[in-house]
């Protein structure tokens, strides 16, 4: 975990902080979602408790905590209670592998602004987030209700179907960057947009060197697949009041329900963060490189530590700005697009997105092969 006990402690605190950040973001996102949907649908939304209804979050938390803890008689208790605990794990583990800023250098210590640097970043994230299917199946089976079971089967079939399109769209990205490591991807996306083909170099002064300009199709497929992975509208077929009630969490209430929510929002955050890393330059700022920012910081102060802190903070802010933007798109889409039907969902995953992602892979390989 580190070279001495100080570094180990800091790294552990960092991991806990990342988790707490995710947990804290959930009520804020719920508030944004409710206010945002109200804005889109021309309603008021929560506006009674506190300024702009912000204290609604606190009221909700208290309400969740004081709800009666309830399990149906027929439920299989160990699975029923383990499922919400497990819901926290995959998304958090994957999110902790996301680099959120340039490393912080204090004296001889170098702290990465990410939980841990798995050198096969993407493969690790895909592997860990594929464990989310167990949570769904455990909850569905443990509840002993037919609605839960049907919802769980639907949700897990949907999650694994879209994992194919997700995994295949990433192949194009890996071909482009030639690495699994997320930090190296971000570094490769700095500077102005530059195409190198047949010995010529075409460079643009206005556009940053972001992945989206090389892989637009992969970006669309990836983004759509993350919606399905996080079980959100327009792909929230795991729920449906008219058919299977609330899907695999029909029997859950109170705090256990909230833990499923944390998992769902965690997947949403993971999708946004990966979208930024792959296609929108990660923590990079358009038109400016890390060296530029460091130079600018050196003009303000002399201390090396302060320069590093400023650089890290500026890039962290840049990451957060993009992050919030994508989270808002997640919410926006939810209240704009209608739902799919289940057969349409499967058709879209298997017969549309999978072939398109395959085509994108072949095309990318062909272009890389031809121009070099």
């Amino acid at each position, binding site marked *: 975990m580190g070279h001495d006990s100080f570094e180990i402690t800091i790294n552990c605190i960092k991991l806990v902080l990342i988790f707490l950040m995710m947990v804290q973001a959930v009520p804020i996102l719920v508030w944004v979602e409710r206010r945002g949907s109200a804005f889109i649908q021309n309603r008021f939304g929560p506006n009674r408790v506190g300024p702009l209804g912000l204290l609604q979050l606190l009221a909700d938390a208290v309400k969740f905590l004081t709800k009666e*803890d309830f399990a149906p*008689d027929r439920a299989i208790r160990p699975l029923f209670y383990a499922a*919400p605990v497990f819901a926290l*794990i995959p998304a958090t583990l994957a999110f902790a592998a996301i680099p959120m800023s340039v490393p912080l250098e204090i004296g001889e210590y170098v702290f990465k602004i990410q939980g841990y640097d*798995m050198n096969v970043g993407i493969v690790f994230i895909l592997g860990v987030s594929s464990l989310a299917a167990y949570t769904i199946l455990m909850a569905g089976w443990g509840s002993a209700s037919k609605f*839960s079971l049907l919802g769980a089967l639907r949700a897990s079939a949907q999650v694994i179907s879209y994992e194919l399109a997700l995994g295949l769209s990433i192949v194009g990205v890996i071909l482009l960057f030639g690495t699994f490591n997320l930090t190296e991807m971000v570094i490769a996306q700095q500077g102005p947009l530059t195409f190198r083909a047949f010995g010529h170099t075409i460079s643009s002064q206005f556009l940053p060197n972001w992945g989206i300009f090389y892989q637009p199709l992969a970006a669309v497929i990836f983004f759509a697949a993350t919606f399905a992975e996080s079980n959100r509208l327009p792909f929230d077929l795991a729920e449906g009041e008219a058919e299977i009630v609330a899907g695999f969490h029909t029997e859950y209430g109170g705090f256990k329900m909230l833990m499923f929510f944390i998992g769902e929002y965690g997947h949403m955050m993971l999708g946004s963060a990966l979208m930024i890393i792959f296609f929108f330059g990660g923590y990079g700022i358009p038109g400016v490189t890390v060296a530029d920012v460091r130079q600018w910081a050196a003009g303000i102060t002399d201390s090396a530590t302060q320069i590093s802190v400023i650089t890290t903070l500026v890039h962290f802010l840049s990451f957060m700005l993009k992050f919030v933007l994508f989270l808002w798109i997640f919410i926006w889409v939810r209240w704009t697009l209608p739902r799919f039907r289940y057969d349409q969902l499967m*058709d879209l995953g298997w017969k549309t997105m999978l072939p398109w992602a*395959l085509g994108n892979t072949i095309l990318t*390989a062909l272009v890389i092969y031809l121009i070099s």
Partner: protein
Amino acid sequence: MAEASGMPLGGVIFLTVFLAIFGTFLIFLARAIGGRRTNNSAAKRDIYECGIPGQDKRETKVSVKFYLTAILFILFDIEIIFMYPWAITFRDFISSGQGTFVFASMMIFLAIFIFGLFWEIKSKALEWD
């Protein structure tokens, strides 16, 4: 050497254990703080249903499509995983002059993949009704 392999994995295990303890703690906290059961009728303790006696999951008919989807997912997932090492080394192969060979071998693999996919689509194994 110890650092190289131990560092990320230690973090992962620490976080997993932390989350498991934290989640369990939350469950127990909610149990301790949460309201007490006042209504203890059989209907309340039953699973959710709209006014009729609850139906156990054992009487539920489930389409085998779900399981077919899972099988096909495994097989296609592995084929996709095989593309990852190819994608990461493709540029190296091109610069070392073996690009044509590796490109062609992956295209053969992809042709088999596409054949399989279209066979599944044609055989209506992916049809949901």
